């Protein structure tokens, strides 16, 4: 009997963990559907939406630009070094362009947004939850899903694709900078090779990934903020969980989307 219990306990714990995870996924999905539906239904709060567009989009520009330029530069160095092993140094512009636009641009922008935006949304909304500001909103006849969540999710969906497009361009330029300054590439040839190689499909897929990642980042921050536990500890846990969940979901979504867009 005792032996059975000893074996059963960890299995039961595992089962509970899996069920808990599934339940949490379901709650997140329901929350997301509700949030998206509020974007489409009036009333909208234009002031809140503008503020969210500004903080999520505009204020993220520096971090996105810096991330992209360094990544593009490093990519050029690596491809050059790797390509040299079989005399294929010339592929630097093409591979940098493909790598940035298809994968690294959207993924890195998505992860930086998860770090910067998801954390601040989660901490802000969780603090509002624990200080009863969300309860106060409800008693003031204002739906928090509409007033707090919808503007932020809308801003994520709109601005992150734009940031991704920008990150793609800046990343390619980072590669170009390194290639022309230190690797001896001709500037005009490099740019011509890049433009010739990139297809519209690459660009659209990049922007689509950006929209999905932006939505994930904003929804995750809002969900964990709204469901925060009590006190400062609750806020801390909510923020950590929001960033973790956003990063994992972004990487998983990237894998799925790459499969959808590029499987032959």
């Amino acid at each position, binding site marked *: 009997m005792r032996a059975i219990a000893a074996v059963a306990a960890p299995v039961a714990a595992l089962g509970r963990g899996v069920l808990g995870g599934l339940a949490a996924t379901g709650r997140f999905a329901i929350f997301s559907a509700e949030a998206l539906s509020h974007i489409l239904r009036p009333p909208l*709060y234009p002031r809140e939406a503008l503020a969210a567009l500004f903080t999520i989009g505009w204020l993220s520009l520096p971090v996105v630009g810096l991330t992209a330029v360094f990544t593009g530069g490093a990519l050029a160095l690596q491809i050059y070094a790797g390509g040299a092993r079989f005399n294929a140094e010339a592929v630097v512009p093409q591979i940098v362009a493909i790598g940035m636009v298809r994968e690294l641009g959207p993924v890195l922008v998505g992860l930086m947004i998860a770090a910067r935006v998801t954390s601040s949304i989660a901490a*802000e909304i969780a603090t509002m939850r624990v*200080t009863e*500001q969300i*309860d*106060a*909103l409800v008693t003031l*006849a*204002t739906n928090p899903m509409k007033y707090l969540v919808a503007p932020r999710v809308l801003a994520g969906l709109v601005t992150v694709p734009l940031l991704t497009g920008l990150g793609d361009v800046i990343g390619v330029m980072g590669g170009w900078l390194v290639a022309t300054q230190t690797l001896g590439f001709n500037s005009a040839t490099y740019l011509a090779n890049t433009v010739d190689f990139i297809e519209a499909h690459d660009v659209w897929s990049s922007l689509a990934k950006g929209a999905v990642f932006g939505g994930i980042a904003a929804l995750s921050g809002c969900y964990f903020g709204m469901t925060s536990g009590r006190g400062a500890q609750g806020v801390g846990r909510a923020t950590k969980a929001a960033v973790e969940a956003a990063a994992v979901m972004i990487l998983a979504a990237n894998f799925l989307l790459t499969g959808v867009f590029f499987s032959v």
Partner: protein
Amino acid sequence: MIAIEGLCKTFGETPVLRGVDLRVARGQSLVVIGGSGTGKSVLLKCILGLVEPDAGRISIAGEPLGPRHREALFSRFGMLFQGAALFDSLPVWQNVAFRLLRGPGRLTRRAARQVAVEKLGRVGLGPEVADRFPAELSGGMQKRAGLARAIAADPEIIFFDEPTTGLDPIMAGVINTLIREIVSDMGATAITITHDMSSVRSIADRVAMLHDGVIRWEGPAAGIDRSGDPYVDQFIHGRAELLP
């Protein structure tokens, strides 16, 4: 106006409310007293649906309260939270005028600001406070700004959770008078939670004492000194002895 029957709420293993029955007539001011941690704030939140009760019936104006009716309720409702719960991203006047700036019958910003400054004046806060942020106010000032927000849209039903804690005795007197005026002059229905006997005496038409998860005593404010209930007597006189 507000009728509560058999309201129960348990957090984890601890029962907080164990069958609360309470009625408030239209235009009446009910004060709920009771020891710290007895569930007074939870009672208000259950009525509002901010906390999901485990059991019990709540009706307002004869209608059982579901999500749909709550929306109607909140359109003519005001609440002062125990911790004020001001929106810290908005300046004080926009907090007070929150309702006036939004929704179908919204005012212009200039008009809303005027109303906000007037309401701030009623709770003893000068116009210079209007443009400050809640984090720049003292606890008592935040409480009063929260009160101004609760009464800004002239609600018909108002809940006050400890309106005078954290205030000096003079300011507490001002707030008590204000709450009494709101009920008497505007005909609002009010539930106030307080530990402060001077508040009870100036605000209440009726008093209810919450103890051990149930309403232990309920009666007219004038009768509170002759309640015949040892717990009520103890509360009024602040005696520390243990009762059975």
